[in-house]
């Protein structure tokens, strides 16, 4: 379990994370989403004590990370795939990390086999591909068989087999009752892996809810409609304030209303409709809308000033 309370971090004058509070629950995979520079990595670095919060605090399994006697048994973290000396072999890197906790070499061999690094374990890490580096980072995170896992962009650079493996690993660990906190840029992957989502933007939490709720609640309903009188239907829908887009001569995509409403409007206007397909809202749509929401909020903020200025000129 990870609990952040009023967590914030400034780098000089720049605010990376401002006053963020959230809880990552055990037993499920919690996804951490946000645009580049939103503060995801900074937040994760603060969780494992690499960066000191400017204000607020974050505790893992009840204590600040640095106060755990055996931190690698509490938290496994993949923060940066290249947090390894390039001239050392993967095996020796893991052995050095394991030694700090008295973790036996048998466990080192276990995580090497588990992450499929067996063939390259004795080779210098400097020659590793991005994907191999990721596997090594995950192996290091798993060394202490930790209660909580923090994975920053774990599927970055992995091959399809590796992506699938990370997905099963994350879900499997959560099913065992562990806390799994992972960030990713790949929305489709996140939609498949995560149970719960925390969305961060501009250093603040935008959403913190189960993934299903975010997709259903935030993503707008879209419906594909085929009709031989598209212009009439577009006009009729527009009268009700519904926007629609003509994709092909006889194909429309209608946003924001239930299919039944579309059928009703068509019936009233005597328009033949021969396809009415609700489209599944995707996490990507929901995410875009969430982050777009922040942008819209900003421009609305500016508008009153503008209208005020025009009104002033009018006088």
């Amino acid at each position, binding site marked *: 379990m990870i609990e952040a309370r009023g967590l914030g971090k400034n780098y000089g004058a720049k605010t990376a994370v401002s006053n963020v509070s959230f809880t990552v629950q055990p037993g499920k995979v919690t996804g951490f989403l946000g645009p580049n520079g939103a503060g995801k990595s900074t937040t994760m*670095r603060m969780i*494992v*004590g*690499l*960066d*000191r919060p400017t204000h607020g605090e974050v505790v893992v*399994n*009840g204590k600040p*990370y*640095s106060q*755990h*006697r*055996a*931190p*690698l*048994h509490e938290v496994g*973290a993949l*923060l*940066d795939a*290249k*947090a*390894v*000396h*390039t*001239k*050392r*072999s993967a095996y*020796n*890197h893991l*052995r*050095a*990390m394991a*030694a*700090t*906790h*008295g*973790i*036996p070499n048998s*466990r080192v061999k276990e995580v090497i086999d588990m992450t499929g690094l067996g063939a390259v374990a004795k080779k210098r890490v400097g020659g590793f591909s991005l994907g191999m580096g990721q596997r090594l980072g995950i192996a*290091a995170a798993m060394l*202490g*068989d930790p*209660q909580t896992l923090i994975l920053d962009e774990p599927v970055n650079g992995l091959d399809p087999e590796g992506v699938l493996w990370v997905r099963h690993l994350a879900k499997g660990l959560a099913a*065992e*009752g*562990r806390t799994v906190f992972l960030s990713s840029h790949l929305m489709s992957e996140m939609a498949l892996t995560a149970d719960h989502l925390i969305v961060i933007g501009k250093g603040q939490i935008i959403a913190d809810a189960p993934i299903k709720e975010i997709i259903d609640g935030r993503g707008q309903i879209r419906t594909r409609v085929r009709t031989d009188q598209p212009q009439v239907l577009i006009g009729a829908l527009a009268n009700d304030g519904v926007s629609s887009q003509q994709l092909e001569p006889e194909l429309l995509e209608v946003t924001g209303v239930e299919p039944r409403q579309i059928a009703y409007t068509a019936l009233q206007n005597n328009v033949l409709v021969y396809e009415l397909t609700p489209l599944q809202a995707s996490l990507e749509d929901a995410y875009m809308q969430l982050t777009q929401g922040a942008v819209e909020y900003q421009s609305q903020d500016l508008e009153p000033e503008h209208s005020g200025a025009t009104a002033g000129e009018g006088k």
Partner: protein
Amino acid sequence: MSSATINTPTHRSTNNSGGVNFMRVLKSEWIKITTVPSTVILLAITVLVMVGLAALGAWSVTMFADMTSSVPEGVDMGEVPEISAMVASVPGSGLIFGQLLIASLAVVLIASEWGTGMIRSTMVAVPGRIPALLAKQLVFAVIAFLVGAGSAFLGYLVAQPILATADLTLSLTDDGVLLHIINTGSVLALVAVLAMSIGTLIRNTAGGVVTSIGLLMVLPILLQLFSNIAEWLQDAYRFLPGSGGEQMVATQIMDGDFNQWQGALVLGAWALVLLVASLIVTKNRDV
């Protein structure tokens, strides 16, 4: 151990082994230092060069002895070191070179962790940070001591047949010889701590190496060059880390110079102050 079992759900693995302690961190740092091949190669080179320079030093002393013995009686040679003191300082002839290599390596060992990102793995495993730094310092200081004292002892052995050609003798029981050999190691150990602290503060290999070498080797030259400008510059010279090291291995103390123990205090104080500064800064700064 009980606290670990209380909040441990059933799935917790059996290898929860009690957590971080200093002995374990020492072992980890030992693994880290010995598993980067270039480090081991550089240490071997240091030993070879230091022993080679001791042989060269022995040869040079025999030449000097030949020269002085051919000077006729009554010719004033000015102030020259006693020949016995020169012989006694043969084993540590390569100390300057040893300092150069050990200081550079000490900086590389810590700064490369920042350069490669390894430091994040290190500090995640040992979030107290200070034990990790102290362990690395201790492991490398011991290695530097063994390299220095070991090279000096090998130099002592290699010098024997060379010195014998000029009927000069060098024995461990001679005045100051054993201390000279041991202190050749002590100087390298203290230089290692000093340079690694600088590397920890600067977090950059090139910058750390330049700063360390500048402090140890360039600053004394500069001070001597400009010592005529002000009297206190000459006095300050004695308090430089390099001068302290020089006195530690001295086999003859000139008038007004620090003795071996005072020299050790000077170099030791520099190393300690920089070490403490590096620990405080690393503890408080983001990694």
